[in-house]
């Protein structure tokens, strides 16, 4: 069984976000970039499926600038077998990403596509669901537990009220949530081995898919800053202020 794992190169989650002065976007120049944390969890899950004997091959795919190869190498170092970079200089919308991934799925024929539930830059939480729709595959989103047996996947999902378990027929799209697993650190031997694993590069245009954007970013701004607060003396002071000053009690 082949597992396809799309991964995205994003601003490292530890880096302080700076909005460009001209409002055109977030400043990414010379900032540390890393694999989207949810995608690390997706790769980890796929590699574990391989180690358990359920999956036979894990293929990582990324869509973006040439430097996304670093992200793919990390995926290979974590245990993916092959990687594919679809090069595109423009920022692609989730819909375009889903369409490109559909084309990749047609080529690669995976049984399961595992993705991070959202990318921490766009926070759209959309690609997985859209890919499933385009493929007419069932979707199991926000997975906190995945069991694959035969041609079904049983997935426990984190939902607003608690946990929901569903069963989906394969092939299926699964998006992963935070608590699914703890991604491994790439070991040195695997980092070295990763260099020898295949990493193909293709141009986004070569897929013949309509990736023209539907959304135009008019501006990016910082949110209004909260006024600075104060430190209160003690609990009595706090209650008094909450009642009289803030009026919330």
């Amino acid at each position, binding site marked *: 069984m082949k597992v396809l794992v799309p991964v995205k190169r994003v601003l490292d989650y530890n880096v302080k976000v700076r909005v460009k002065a001209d409002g055109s976007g977030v400043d990414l120049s010379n900032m540390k970039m890393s694999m989207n944390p949810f995608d690390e969890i997706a790769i980890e899950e796929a590699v574990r499926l391989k180690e358990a004997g359920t999956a036979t091959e894990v293929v990582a795919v990324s869509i973006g600038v040439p430097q996304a190869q670093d992200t793919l190498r*990390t995926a290979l170092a974590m245990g993916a077998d092959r990687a594919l970079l679809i090069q595109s200089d423009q920022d692609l919308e989730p819909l375009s990403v889903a369409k490109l991934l559909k084309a990749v799925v047609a080529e690669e024929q995976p049984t399961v596509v595992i993705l991070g539930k959202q990318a921490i830059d766009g926070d759209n939480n959309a690609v997985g669901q859209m890919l499933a729709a385009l493929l007419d595959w069932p979707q199991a989103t926000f997975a906190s537990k995945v069991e694959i047996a035969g041609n079904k996947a049983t997935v426990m999902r984190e939902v607003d009220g608690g946990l929901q378990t569903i069963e989906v027929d394969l092939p299926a799209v699964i998006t992963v949530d935070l608590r699914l697993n703890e991604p491994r650190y790439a070991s040195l031997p695997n*980092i*070295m081995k990763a260099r020898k694993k295949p990493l193909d590069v293709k141009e986004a245009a070569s897929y013949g898919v309509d990736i023209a954007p539907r959304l135009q970013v008019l501006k990016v701004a910082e949110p209004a800053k909260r006024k600075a607060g104060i430190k209160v003396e003690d609990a009595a002071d706090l209650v008094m202020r909450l009642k009289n000053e803030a009026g919330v009690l």
Partner: protein
Amino acid sequence: MQIYTAPLRDMRFVLHELHGLERLYALPAFADFSDELVDSVLEEAGKVTREVLLPINASGDEEGCVLDNGVVRTPKGFKEAYNVFREGGWNALSAEPEWGGQGLPKCVGSAVEEMICGANLSFSLYPGLTAGAVEALKSHASDELKQRFVPKMVEGTWAGSMCLTEAHCGTDLGLLRTKATPQEDGSYKIDGAKIFISSGDHDLTPNIIHLVLARLPDAPEGVRGISLFLAPKFLPDADGNPGQRNGIQCTALEHKMGIKASATCQLSLDNATGWLVGEPNKGMAAMFTMMNTERVGVGIQALGVAEAAYQSAVAYARDRIQGRALGGAQHPDQAADPIIVHPDVRRMLMTMRVNNEGCRALAAWVSQALDLRTHAATEEERLEAEDFVALMTPVVKALFTDLGYESVNLAMQVHGGHGYIRDHGMEQYVRDTRITMIYEGTNGVQALDLVGRKMPAHMGRYLRRFFHPVAEFIAANKADPDIGKMVEALEKAFGALQLTTAQLAQSGMKDPEEAGAAATEYLRLFGLVALAYLWARMAKVAAGKLAAGDPDAAFYSAKLISARFYYERILPQTSALFLSIKAGKGAMMEMAEAAF
């Protein structure tokens, strides 16, 4: 608060842009490597050190190690962290593939070491001691001994320790009393008591391989009568697994000022079984083989912690608002300005920064020489590298640790009162780094080594390995439009160093006490000139990148400004040192002993 993000950008600058690793990639030993691979390794090391080692640094210091019924327990989290470290292959980073290592160049290993120490100095001593023991074994042990012990130690499955010091002898190991008595089967029985043994006992690995210095019966007196032995905590059974418990026991844990999570033991050897490593009575020579790598390692320990301290100090200086900028409020909307606006705070931060970055550049230079001395194609190149390492080892050890200790104290100072409070983590850095000026050969011993052994060696051959490139650089760049002024200052300082060297060579020959009296200041003078040379080279690279329109302009501009600070505010110290040294031993030796 202790924060630490591995300084990957600066490490990449130093490795790829300042020094370049092409010379290593051209060698068969490193033919498989590339900048890309090196960067992946550094990236992952940064992650592991920050996410696994840093979180247990303060807690490890708080908890310390415990000796419980003869067993030493490391603080909570250390075992798990060590497993992640070992399983990730990090213990074996620079070891040769034939021993199960990853075979990465030592200069990459040094960068990773810096990260480990920056995140958790105590932790670094466990794999650090193992690496030292492995070096000694690889160079001097019989094939049989090597096969039995080295692979597991390279893996990190078994750890190592170095048992040299005794209560009455540290610096002067010639006085040591531990005895080794030959047995019929070729092994030895060792009896004695050792102190200050880092990683002497712990719960991270199922076996610990101790390298022990001891005297054979009828051995000559002093250092010429010392032999090196291997004595494991558990004697390997027929399958090579830890079997019978050997006669080495931790009798007490040292109560130290710092590196509290490092298990520093008093060890008692009671009829312990051991095997000879190398030739009888050649133990000191065997030790010294690995001493160079260990001493450079200690320098890097201090650099690692100094970098972490600097990062915390910068974060604090940005957030802490007190008072107003001398030229008028810079943030009138806030109750006060962040203290980073104050010149005196800047002075402290810049001092830390330029010392850290300068030392990092020097560490990379010296560690690349560690690779070349083993792997360079020609004997000539290997000798050149070996000489350079021999010369620079005492400088790296003493300079980095002295400057590192100054830096962590500056970081505490920047924090004001909060720097003195445990929770902020600065005082731990001070307590932890203090030992680096002492162990692995006190800085005084390093200075004597530089002046007494390395400076005069082979008619100044070692010296030339440093003087030559500096002189060449000066000649080639005096008229450089970007760094010409800097190079002029470098020339003056270098001239002072050369003059002092010549004077010291003369006076030292006549009276060894003159050499001894000048040694510490000479080493500092030497070190400052070395850093100045590297700063000028870094400035040149940065100026070139800016001129070429490199998008990372912010980084290169900062490099240029740092170089300027070094030259304007740090390098002038060389003039004072020159004068002190020139003054000679006089007053200090004239004082009657009774008058102290």
